[in-house]
Each structure stands twice: as structure tokens, then as C-alpha cells.
């Protein structure tokens, strides 16, 4: 649009809107059906975005439940997809050790380093008298475990440094294990058996809730040395994994760098070889997850947009009808001095009015659906991103401009004299 056209547009804007609203109201049935088309489209897109966002937030929340700025060092990456043993290079890697954790701790006072080792592969019998927990798993950990994995202690306390140092026979229960074997009594100070060996309960971890189909609460935690004594085959096979949390969030990048440098030096990795251990941060996991679900969510939003496109076709169709039926009106306008661009402005405004009303109603309906889903399906905490209502409105306006352009131009091209003569 040239500058003068823009000025004319502004001048005529209010009257255009008034005219447009009049025209829309005059043909109630027709306008409401046209608007309905846009409403359905925008609502679908809004609801889809809300549900997808909710789903993502749910997963990301789960990932962050173990610490938003936690760095995890493992022997090899978690592998998804078809099974089979890890490739040869990975199988030959050295285990990570408790000494690695100690070295990192010495070198980085600005971070908390915890080492842990889990045994998941068998049924572990954990008993209080004749009550038995429902196949929990066993972790060996040091006194830094609660910080390293963002766990809070629900009751009692965690191990002390001395208990870890002396491989004391003490245990901290996950909340699910506590419910199974101490349903009524206070477990602190009581004895339980882990695979027949007697341990004293000193604390209970706070509940985290089920995630990705497994429960992190169905476990017991032993001091690393006690674990190594009882499950030494597991320690020998997989070694430990390390969790590192910087004390100040802004140190995260520096801590990652330092950790990698120290680990490479300790494991004597030549400078021209890649890391022979895996470093994972929650950010990484989240982006991995996004890569998996991104395609599906993109496709869904795309398909939802198609219905908006069809709504736009409806707008165009009705505007064309409107132009034909109001040919005489256009002729009169032109005869009393309206310019071509005035006619364009008039019909374009009408189209945009239709689609914007539809967009606004669609946004409202989308918000409503999102709220309903949130209230009825707890697994889908739908959320409306702040940009989504905005984009919904702008896109519906854009649809009005795009599909209103041709009818408006067609109206402006009518020969004034012919138009006046039209019946």
C-alpha cells in the first residue's frame, strides 16, 4: 500500500468498521455461519496447542523433578530402541568410581558431587517382620544424595558422612516402601532386612510420584560401602554414576566444562579422542524428548490449521456473494465520489471483521476447552502459552485479509456505470 492509500485507509477506518458491522448484522444467518467456520478452525488450533503444551509441560516437569541443573555422568548414554548389548567401544569403557566423585569434590568446591549405584535387575526382598515390600530396587549412595538428585527427606534424616565412611548398616526408605512395610507405625529407629541383612531405618524420602511408568518411590537407599558389600557384583559390573549440582545456578556451564576436563584427565583420554563417558543434563534430555515428539505435535497443529484454511475459503465465498448482491450499492458509492481504494477498504474491513469475530470467539472457546480438559484429565495439565491467543487472533485476521483481498479487488474493479445500472 502506498502512503496515500494508507492515509485514506486510516481516515476511512472507523466508518469502514461501522459499515462492516452493519453489513455483518444485516445478514445474521450468513454471517454467523461464516464466523462459525473460523471459530471451529481457531478453536481446534487453540485446543491442540493447549493440549500439546500441557503434555510437554508434564514430561518436562517430570524430567526436572530430579534437579533442573543437575549434571549426570555415566559410563554410557541411556540407549533407546532395540536392545542388544552396547557397542564394543562402550563395553570396553572403564567404570566410574567413588574415587572419581572424591576427586571432583576436591577440585570443585563450588558444586555438590554425589555418587550412586543402583541394582534394578532382580527381586530384592525387603522385610519388616513378615511384611514385604513389592519388589523395590536398591541404591547405594553417599551423604550428598539428597542434593544430587533433588530429594527432600520426609521423615528422620539422611546418612551422615561418618555412616557412609564406616559403611554403617543404616537405610533410608522410599515412601512407597515405607507404606508397604510400615503402614501404621513410625519406621525411624526400627530394623528391616534387605536380602536377609539387618539395617536400621534412619529416614524416609519425600514422595515424587510415578514417572514414565515407573515409581522412583519404590526403593531403599543404603550407604555406598554397605551396598558394595552386599551387591558387589553390581558395583563391579556397572560402577557408579555421578550427579553434580553447582551451588549457584550461574556456575552450571563452568561446572560442566570443569567436570569433563577432570574426568578426561583422570581417565587419560587422549586430547584427540571423544569422551569415554556420557554427560547428560536435563536440558539435553528435554531437547531429546522434543525431537521425538516434535514431529507428531507439528503434524497435529498443521492438520488443525487446515480447518482454518477452509474457514477462510468460506469467508471468501460469502464476500464474493456479498459483492455481487451489493453491486448497485457499490455503483452509487462510486458515483458520489468513492475511490477504488475506498471500496477495497470497505470490503476488506468487512472480511476482516468477520474473521476476527470468529477468531476471538475461537480463542474464547479454546480457552474453555483447555480449562475443561485440565479439570477433567489430571494427566494432561493443559496450558495456554501467552502467544497462543495472540497468534490465534492475528492468524484469523490474516485469514480475513488474505481471503478478503480478491473479493474486495473484484468489487473495486466494477465499472461504476454498469454497477449503477445493475438490478
Amino acid at each position, binding site marked *: 500500500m502506498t502512503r496515500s492509500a494508507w492515509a485514506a485507509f486510516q481516515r476511512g477506518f472507523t466508518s469502514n468498521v461501522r459499515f462492516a458491522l452493519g453489513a455483518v448484522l444485516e445478514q445474521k444467518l450468513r454471517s454467523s455461519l461464516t464466523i462459525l467456520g473460523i471459530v471451529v478452525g481457531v478453536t481446534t488450533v487453540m485446543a491442540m496447542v493447549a493440549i500439546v503444551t500441557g503434555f510437554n509441560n508434564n514430561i518436562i516437569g517430570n524430567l526436572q523433578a530430579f534437579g533442573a541443573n543437575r549434571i549426570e555422568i555415566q559410563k554410557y548414554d541411556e540407549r533407546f530402541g532395540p536392545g542388544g548389548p552396547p557397542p564394543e567401544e562402550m563395553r570396553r569403557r572403564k567404570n566410574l568410581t567413588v574415587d572419581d566423585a572424591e576427586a571432583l569434590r576436591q577440585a570443585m568446591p563450588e558444586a555438590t558431587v554425589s555418587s550412586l549405584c543402583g541394582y534394578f*535387575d532382580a527381586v530384592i526382598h525387603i522385610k519388616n517382620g513378615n511384611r514385604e515390600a513389592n519388589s523395590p530396587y536398591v541404591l547405594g549412595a553417599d551423604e550428598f544424595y539428597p542434593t544430587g538428585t533433588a530429594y527432600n527427606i520426609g521423615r528422620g534424616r539422611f546418612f551422615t558422612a561418618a555412616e557412609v565412611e564406616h559403611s554403617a548398616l543404616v537405610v533410608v526408605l522410599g515412601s512407597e516402601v515405607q507404606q508397604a512395610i510400615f503402614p501404621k507405625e513410625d519406621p525411624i529407629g526400627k530394623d528391616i532386612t534387605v536380602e536377609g541383612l539387618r539395617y536400621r531405618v534412619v529416614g524416609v524420602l519425600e514422595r515424587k510420584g510415578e514417572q514414565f*511408568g515407573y515409581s522412583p518411590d519404590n526403593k531403599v537407599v543404603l550407604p555406598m560401602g554397605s551396598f558394595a558389600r552386599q551387591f558387589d557384583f553390581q558395583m563391579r559390573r556397572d560402577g557408579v554414576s555421578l550427579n553434580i549440582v553447582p551451588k549457584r545456578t550461574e556456575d552450571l556451564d563452568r561446572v560442566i566444562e570443569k567436570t569433563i576436563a577432570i574426568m578426561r584427565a583422570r581417565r587419560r583420554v587422549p586430547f584427540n579422542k571423544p569422551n569415554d563417558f556420557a554427560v547428560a543434563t536435563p536440558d539435553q534430555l528435554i531437547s531429546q524428548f522434543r525431537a521425538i515428539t516434535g514431529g507428531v505435535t507439528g503434524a497435529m497443529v498443521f492438520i488443525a490449521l487446515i480447518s482454518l484454511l477452509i474457514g477462510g*475459503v468460506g469467508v471468501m*465465498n460469502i464476500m464474493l456473494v456479498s459483492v455481487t448482491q451489493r453491486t448497485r450499492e457499490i455503483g452509487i458509492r462510486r458515483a458520489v465520489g468513492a475511490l477504488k481504494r475506498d471500496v477495497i477498504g470497505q470490503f476488506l474491513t468487512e472480511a476482516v471483521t468477520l474473521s476476527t469475530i470468529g477468531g476471538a470467539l475461537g480463542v474464547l472457546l479454546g480457552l474453555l476447552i483447555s480449562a475443561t480438559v485440565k479439570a477433567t484429565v489430571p494427566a494432561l495439565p493443559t496450558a495456554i502459552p501467552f502467544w497462543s491467543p495472540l497468534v490465534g487472533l492475528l492468524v484469523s485476521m490474516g485469514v480475513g485479509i488474505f481471503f478478503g483481498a480478491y473479493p474486495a479487488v473484484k468489487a473495486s474493479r466494477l465499472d461504476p456505470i454498469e454497477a449503477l445500472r445493475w438490478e
Partner: protein
Amino acid sequence: MRLSELFSISLQALRLNKLRSGLTLLGVIIGVMTVVSVLSIISGLNDYVMNKVINLNPDVLVFTRYGIIRNRMEFVMARKRKPVTARDLQVVRAECRSCAAVGAQQRQVATVHAGPRKLADVPVMGYTANVSTLLNVDLQAGRFFTPPEEQHAAAVVIIGYDVKDQLFPTIDPIGRTLYVRGYPLRVIGLQTKQGKVLGENRDKVMIVPLTFLQKVMTSDDGIAIMVRPVRGMKGLDETQDEVRTLLRSLRRTPFATDDPFGIVGAEAIQSLWRSISAGAFAVMVLISGISLVVGGIVIANIMFVSVVERTHEIGLRMALGARKRDIKRQFLLESSLLATLGGAGGVLGGTLVAVAVSQLFPAEVKLAFVAIGLVTATLTGLIAGLAPAAAAARLPPVEALRHE
């Protein structure tokens, strides 16, 4: 009024307003196109999983130590089971009366050498000689091993295409020797190129007789016994029971205890896949259906306009003896004709999209989708036309005649 007459009137009305009819058509076309292409892509993906990823004939049952594992609990319980062994295979082979074929496979990973060349982490499949009747094994050159070779644990191997490329890049591999764990193996066959399936390279593989694999490598997890019933698909239940009984009695399993082994059939895997994917697919079909709803709204709108514009014509028809029913039928026919035409265009467009997509991604148009596209389009037209047609039929004839 006769149907053919109605038909020609409707067509005429549609032709009179070409642009308008075209745009209305476009709405339905896009809607049906979306539905048809979404259906094709979903069904293509399903077929891909069934045929390529799972790669199991529908009439074959597999008995393994683990079966399908869905969570840690099942894994932990399955770890306590005894592996399925060559002795189990022998017994099933000898005793199973309803089995047309009994085979087995085992998977290991090894490093392969040939002269100065080496390839690490190659999956080595140990098969029985009759496995080609149970699984799809296509050879490009050479032959499969024979029952005597299986019996004598012959050191022969069929290699996948990548193994050939890495170890014998420029020469014919048949008759050459390669080494696994120091054992010399004679190459007797070359597998047809399979390509990648879900990122897993199916060409990086070697196939050896099961007996040879068991001679040179041990495994805790044992073998997988595969059986095909004499009566084909109909005999699956009977054969499953027979083999179950055999394996249970071999393990002396008390009658009230669960099977100490897993049974995998194509059906079980399919239902697992469905339980994973059905939700997302249903949502996609639903959303694409919504675009058809919008297309219906566009039709209804245009039909209302059309009724208003042709009020005079309707009055004239009524004056000349047309009954309400006739008027109603005329507009219904017009809207459903419009929608069906759109449906046909949409099916065509959807097919084109599916064909284009199938270059990159599995997608397949089935006759059923064409039918679904056409039928839903016609239904959309009928439903969208109901209200406008009723409005037209309700017009008082005298008023309508007077309308300008």
C-alpha cells in the same frame, strides 16, 4: 419429479455460479484431501511397523525366555526364568503334532575379520535351516544352509549387504572366508539389501547355523523357538497350547503357576503397537475430520444464499405444481452433489499427497479410504443441505413468487 430431471437442474445451478461453486468445492476438497492423506499415512505407518519393524509372519508363534517386557517388574520376574534351550527345541520338534515347522533363532554380537579388514558390533543370527519358512529371508546370491549343515554345526555364513561392503568391497564374497572369534567361516550366501528400519541397520548382519553359534558363543538368554501350525492361522491357539504344555512339562511347572516363558505372536505385537499409537492416531483422524465439518459449514452457508437468491424460482416451481418434497429434494441433491464432487477431488488430491509423501515416509492409499472420503463428503453435503432445503421448502409460494 424424476431424479434425472432434478439432477440436471442441480448441475445447471452449480454451473451458473462457477466461482462460487468452485470455492465451495475447494472447501470440501481440502477437507477430504486431509482426511484421505492422514488415513493413508497412518495406515502406511502401521503397515510399515507390521511388515518391516516386526518382521514376523502372522501365522508364527515365538517362545522365548522374556516375551514382551513392558516394565521393570516384568523384567525382574522374567530374569528368574530358565532360558529356552536347544533341548527344548529338540523336544518340541519331536513331539509337537500340530506344528508344520519348528525352528529357532538366537542373537549375538561379534566382531568380524577378513584379511586386514574388520567390522565391529555385527549382530550374528543363529538360525535353524528351516527358518526361511518362518521368517522372511531373501538371498541375492548364493544359498541358505541345509539341514545337514545345521546338524553338523558347519562353519558357513550368510552375510548382509553392509558386511559385504566392509569386508569384501570389490570382490564376490561367495566362497570367501571370514573370521569370528578366531573361527573361520565360509560365506555361502549374500542377503538382499534391506535398508534401515527405524534407524536400525538391517544390512549389518550375519546368519549362521544355530548349532554353530552355540558352539562358539554362549548366552544366558537362550534361544527363541518359532513354530508354524499345520492348520495355519486357524491352528494358532491349538498349537500354542500344545507347545506350552510341552515346555511346561519340561520345566515341571505346577499347573497353577504362570508360564515360565514368554509367547510372542504377531497379534500380541500388533496389539502392543496399537495400544501405543492408537491415541495419537485417533486424535489426528478426529482433527482432520474437523476440517470436513468446516467444509460442511461452508456448503450450508452457500446453500442458504442460493435459496434466498432463487426464491422467485422456487415460487414459480411451486406455482407450477412442485410439492414441498420436490423443492427439498432439489436443494438436498444440489448440496450433496457439490459435496460428492468435492469428495472426488479430495480423494484425488489426497492420493497425490500420499504418493508424494510415500517417497519419504510410508504411506499407502487403500480402496477403503477412497470410499470413506467419498461417503463422508456426501454425508457432509446431505447434512449441510438439510437446513437450507427445509428453509426453501417452507417458503410460502405466493410470497416467493412476488420476491424480486
